[in-house]
């Protein structure tokens, strides 16, 4: 096991090397590119599993913390050096497995999905770069290294979202994603600077000298800044800003739905299952700091930072769920659902600790991957149609997709017992219930759970039930002009095996995973904390009231959804949504995403434009202004001089001129132009002066 622990850096390095090599390959070598990228990812998965097993063995040995670190000097600085490091602990190991597994599936799925794209060589280069960065975030033992990978990941996602760069909407969405997450990144950057300044190290663990270890935490927790906050809280909040940006939490959620402009299932999956989880992972990674530097037991963490985490999470969970209700685009619904679920993860982290949040992260990654791939399959089958109003009745046309999608939907909605989503969400609600500072997160969480069940039912009903409504395309939009549809089903077909097999695999994992974290057998939590789990049904009994609440809420949500959408299928694609006809104003507001984008456009973006214009003018004015000023000054001088002249002339200067003219006539005889006469006059003057002086000297 030490072999893998000391070579943990290989996991991100392999895809990185693959990306580098692929970048140099010519465009036509797509087979080699695909082989390299997928192979490196497969190897990474194998290594990740090995690492995971190693951490399993770790606590079997009875070690208190199954954490392995490997630090090294990056460059010298001052009297010391800047150090980076890698680390393997249960938290990282489980993320590694999740990321490399889901990642590998994406790679395989993309082989089929991108088969006809002329630029697929480059696509796999970006994918590998992305995977490498994400894995780097997971294994980094240094905030600096984590930040570096974090940024590279941002760029990779920028490239992937904007992969179809010829679509202006994709280019804009890519830019938006990069910039909005960069706002968060600046918070992270400042937090990192502060951390470095305060503790002198950015290593998380360094045999007692790391910034997440007791000494540093005590010091940070003991440093008061202002307003009663400690340095630990300040840093934690700044890091939280970074996590909010990356995980699309309110108020920086606006980029995530737009990011669906990328190649359909792949980019969406990245932005739904893996990359956005990085924010949650960051909070989990620095959790000791989040607790305010005091090592409080899980569940009572009531530091300011954790309250912020919980608050942001709860708010996002409900807010995004509301927006999801009114969306028509199958991917956008899932995107908002992702935002909402990420909110749950934050809520879980804030109220329940690492294990609660991370458990939901893992389960969510699998079923959301499943849903997105299913959506991709649906879109692929419906000829790039993404609007659920133009679908319907796909249950019979795409049976495999339907079955697997249903599994994912029930997991997301939180249907009890067999679906992983139920257990992880239940843990979160449980933690929120017993959270001391406030009941509000719990209430919001319950509302969110209801809405989740509702909008997922709506989606199911619209897509898979009723009649197929896609006979005529609503608009000849982006993409390839549609071929003629044969038959009533419009040529809808089930997807090929390379796409359905990952669906089935993911559906299976979704069913199994939930059992790792039930109250009766909290293996996941035990694993993360480094001790072993015991089966105890008594705990289940203690948790049952909460489970009951959860079940009731979910049943209500699904029931309402079915009552509104499933009971009577939509007649035509252009018919208004039932909710829309009932509450038109609210529905349209939600559909317009509550005008948050417009708000930002009118404030932040507008402000930036105005400031830019002002700065541009200023530069021109400083330049032109100087010239204008000089011109103005000389004109002023000329004006005053003229007035002075006229004044003096009017004061009788004319009279003086007459006598001058008379005198001038006389003097003009002297001014005959002969230089020598002048010189002679000068000489005479000199002589006269000399003689006068002489005379005066004699007699003075």
């Amino acid at each position, binding site marked *: 096991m030490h072999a893998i622990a000391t070579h943990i850096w290989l996991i991100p390095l392999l895809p990185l090397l693959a990306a580098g090599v692929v970048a140099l390959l010519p465009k036509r070598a797509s087979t080699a590119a695909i082989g390299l990228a997928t192979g490196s990812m497969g190897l990474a998965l194998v290594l990740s599993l090995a690492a995971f097993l190693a951490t399993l063995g770790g606590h079997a040995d009875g070690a208190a913390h199954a954490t392995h670190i490997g630090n090294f000097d990056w460059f010298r600085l001052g009297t010391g050096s800047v150090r980076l490091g890698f680390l393997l602990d249960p938290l990282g190991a489980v993320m590694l497995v999740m990321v490399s597994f889901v990642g590998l599936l994406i790679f395989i799925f993309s082989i089929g999905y991108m088969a006809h794209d002329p630029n697929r060589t480059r696509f796999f280069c970006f994918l590998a770069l992305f995977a490498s960065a994400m894995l780097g975030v997971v294994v980094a033992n240094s905030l600096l290294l984590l930040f570096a990978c974090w940024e590279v990941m941002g760029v990779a996602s920028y490239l992937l979202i904007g992969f179809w760069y010829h679509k202006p909407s994709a280019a804009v969405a890519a830019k938006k994603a990069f910039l909005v997450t960069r706002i968060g990144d600046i918070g992270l950057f400042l937090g990192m600077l502060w951390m470095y300044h305060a503790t002198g190290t950015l290593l998380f663990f360094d045999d007692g000298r790391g910034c997440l270890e007791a000494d540093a935490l005590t010091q940070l927790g003991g440093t008061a800044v202002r307003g009663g906050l400690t340095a630990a809280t300040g840093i934690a909040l700044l890091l939280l800003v970074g996590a909010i940006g990356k995980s699309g939490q309110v108020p920086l959620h606006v980029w995530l739905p737009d990011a669906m402009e990328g190649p359909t299932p792949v980019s969406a999956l990245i932005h739904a299952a893996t990359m956005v989880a990085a924010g949650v992972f960051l909070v989990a990674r620095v959790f000791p700091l989040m607790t305010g530097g005091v090592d409080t037991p899980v569940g009572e963490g009531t530091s300011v930072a954790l309250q912020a985490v919980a608050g942001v999470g709860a708010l996002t969970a409900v807010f995004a769920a509301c927006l999801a209700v009114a969306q028509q685009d199958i991917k956008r619904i899932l995107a908002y659902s992702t935002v909402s679920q990420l909110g749950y993860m934050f809520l879980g982290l804030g109220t329940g600790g690492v294990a609660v949040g991370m458990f939901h992260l893992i389960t969510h990654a699998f079923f959301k991957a499943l849903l997105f791939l299913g959506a991709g399959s649906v879109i692929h089958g419906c000829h790039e149609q993404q609007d659920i109003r133009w679908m319907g009745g796909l249950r019979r046309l795409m049976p495999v997709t339907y079955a697997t999608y249903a599994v994912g939907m029930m997991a997301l909605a939180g249907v009890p017992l067999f679906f992983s989503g139920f257990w992880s969400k239940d843990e979160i609600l449980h933690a929120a219930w017993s959270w001391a500072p406030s009941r509000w997160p719990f209430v919001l969480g319950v509302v969110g759970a209801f809405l989740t069940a509702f909008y997922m039912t709506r989606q199911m009903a619209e897509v898979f039930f009723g009649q197929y409504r896609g006979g005529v395309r609503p608009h000849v939009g982006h993409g390839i002009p549609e071929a003629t549809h044969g038959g009533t089903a419009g040529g809808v077909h089930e997807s090929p095996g390379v796409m359905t097999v990952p669906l089935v695999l993911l559906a299976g994992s979704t069913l199994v995973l939930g059992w790792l974290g039930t109250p009766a057998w909290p293996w996941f939590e035990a694993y993360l904390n480094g001790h072993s789990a015991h089966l105890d049904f008594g705990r289940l009994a203690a948790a049952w009231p909460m489970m009951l609440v959860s079940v009731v809420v979910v049943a209500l949500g699904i029931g309402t959804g079915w009552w509104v959408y499933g009971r009577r299928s939509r007649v035509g694609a252009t018919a208004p949504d039932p909710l829309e006809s009932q509450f038109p104003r609210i529905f349209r507001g939600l559909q317009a995403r509550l005008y948050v984008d417009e708000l930002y456009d009118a404030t932040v973006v507008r402000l930036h434009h105005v400031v830019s214009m002002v700065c541009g003018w200023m530069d021109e004015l400083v330049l032109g202004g100087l010239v204008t000023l000089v011109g103005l000054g000389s004109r002023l001088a000329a004006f005053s001089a003229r007035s002075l002249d006229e004044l003096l002339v009017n004061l009788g200067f004319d009279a003086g001129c007459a006598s001058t003219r008379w005198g*001038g006539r006389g*003097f003009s005889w002297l*001014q005959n132009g*002969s230089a*020598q006469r002048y*010189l*002679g006059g000068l*000489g005479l003057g000199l002589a006269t002066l000399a003689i006068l002086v002489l005379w005066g000297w004699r007699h003075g």
Partner: protein
Amino acid sequence: MNPAQPYLFLAAALFIIGMAGALARRNAILALVGIELMLNAANLSFVAFWRHGPHPDPQTGLMFALFSIAIAGAEAAVGLALIIALFRHRRSVSLEAAESLKG
């Protein structure tokens, strides 16, 4: 007789010769030569006063002469350029050719 006086007499002689020439000659160049002689006479006095004068400052007189030489150089350059310009217009360097600036 103090030691500076011979030099001062020499300077006076130079000055007078220069002045007489500058007044008498028609050629503008030679008039300029006369002026140069007068300037040199002044320089000679400066140096004489510096060497034998009562003031103890070791440098000022020399400096004055030095700067004067520099200025004389400038003056000669401009004067000769003027003469060339004059020659181009009048085909002559006679001072009478330049008497058009009369009142």
